[in-house]
Each structure stands twice: as C-alpha cells, then as structure tokens.
C-alpha cells in the first residue's frame, strides 16, 4: 500500500491500522535523524513523539506536491533546528557565514570525499560540524532531496542552498583532515 493511499484511508477512517503503517515506515528514520542532530537518545525519543504528533495533526494539509517522505523529513529537520535554536538561543543556525569564512575554498569539493568515508569517520565528522551544516548534508546525501526541496524546507533560495552545501562540504572535509590525517579514507 502506497503512502498516499494510507494517508487517504487514515483521513477517512482515522483507523489506527493506518497510523501503525506510517509509524512503522517512518518512526525509526525520524529517530535516526533526531539522534544525529540532537545527539541525545532521550531527547531524540521525545522529539520523535512530538514530530509524529505534528505529522498526524497536519496530515490533511499534506498537498502531495512532494513525496510524503520529503514532507515528513522537512518537519523533522525543522523541528530539530528549532529545538536547537531555542536551546542554544542562536538567532539563526543557518545564518550565512560565507562572509565570515574566507577560508572556504573556491573549487567545488567532490561528493566522493564525503561518500568514501567509513561509518565511524562519517559519524565523527557529522558530530563535529554545526547542526545546520549537518542537516543540509543529511538532506542531500541521506534523503536524496533535490536542491528545490531543500530550499523549500529551509525557506531559502536555491542559490543560497547551493552555497550552504558547498560550505558544509568544506567544513566536513576540514574536520576529516583534522581528525583522521594519519588514517586512510
């Protein structure tokens, strides 16, 4: 049964079976993203519950303009970013720091640099870059979201998103070099 069919069925009948299906499909993935960004298992568990509540309360607003998974992940990232923003009292986790970061190289860093890291390295790298950069890399490489979808999720322009991806890749590369200089990739 496709996601859209389950959603229509849930909206018509409010059946807990439909809720169960969507929960089984997405809860673990939402939890995984929350744990990546919040870095705390208990907080990630609470966040998963709140995100699911949000999803089901707003299910009738899902316009099917994008895939359901994209919509679900958008809610997840925005929830985690808002949570971290409140926690750290940061004005904007995604603030454009390009002007403040002149050391970002002009040439494009290849995706290969990120995709060739093993899981241990990737975890360390993601844990040591700002949550905004981490979220944008997860959207691009974990969820295969298009630039347009990322821009919609973050309420930014497509060119701003491209710049942020470039900057996030540069930071990831920098952390990898700092932490794993003696180890082969």
């Amino acid at each position, binding site marked *: 049964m496709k996601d859209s069919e389950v959603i229509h069925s849930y909206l018509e009948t*409010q059946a*807990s079976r439909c*809720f*169960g299906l969507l*929960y089984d499909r997405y*809860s*673990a*993935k939402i*939890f*995984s*993203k929350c*744990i*990546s960004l919040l870095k705390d*298992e208990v907080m990630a*568990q609470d966040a*998963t*519950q709140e995100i*699911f*509540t949000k999803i*089901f*309360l707003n299910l009738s607003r899902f316009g099917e303009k994008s895939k359901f998974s994209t919509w679900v992940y958008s809610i997840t990232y925005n929830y985690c970013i808002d949570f971290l923003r409140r926690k750290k009292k940061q004005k904007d986790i995604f603030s454009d720091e390009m002007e403040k970061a002149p050391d970002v190289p002009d040439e494009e860093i290849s995706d290969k640099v*990120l*995709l*060739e*890291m*093993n*899981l241990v390295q*990737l*975890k360390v790298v*993601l844990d040591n870059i700002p949550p905004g950069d981490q979220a944008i*890399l*997860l959207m691009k*490489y*974990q969820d295969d979201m298009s630039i347009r979808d990322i821009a919609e999720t973050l309420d930014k322009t497509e060119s701003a998103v491209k710049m942020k991806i470039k900057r996030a890749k540069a930071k990831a590369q920098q952390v990898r070099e700092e932490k794993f200089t003696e180890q082969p990739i």
Partner: protein
Amino acid sequence: MRPDMNNFQKLLEEQSSLYEGAKRQKVQNNLLQTFGIFKFVGQLIDVYLPAMVNVIVSSMGGRLDENEKIAPPDFKNPPPDLGESHPGKISPELPDLDDLR
C-alpha cells in the same frame, strides 16, 4: 543493508536499529494515547459546544434554536381561519376624514 546504499544511508540504517523494541513501542503507545485524548476532546466539543452557544445566547436574551423560529407571515396564502381579516389582504380601516377635520 542494501549494497547500493551510500555511507549516509548506511548510517541512517544503523541508527534506526537503535529504535527497536521497548522504545519503539513506548512512543507508539504514547502517541495512540495522545490521539485518543484529542479524539475524546473533539467529540466533547462536537456534543457540547452547540448547547453551550445556545445557553450563552439565551442568557443574553436572544433566540437561536431553529425549531423555535417564528415563520414570517405568508400574505399571499393566508391560513383559512383568518380569512378576510388577514392583514395581508385588507388594510386597516382608514379613519373617517370628517373626524379629522
């Protein structure tokens, strides 16, 4: 894990496996409980809100109940018992002009 997954997707799978058993069940139960409460509150509102509105309107001296609405008079088809004296058919008697002088 599928072989065509990249390292980011493998990380997702690995972290997802932390969310199994009791944790998964606990969150699901909490959610079902929350939705149950929402449903109950929704039903309460459905049942009691119109009644509450009626009480408030009545206490302010208004009338809202559809069943108690007074039908407007039908001047074209007067009820038979009113006959010719129905105000829609015959105007009130004009005062005698002599009395006015």
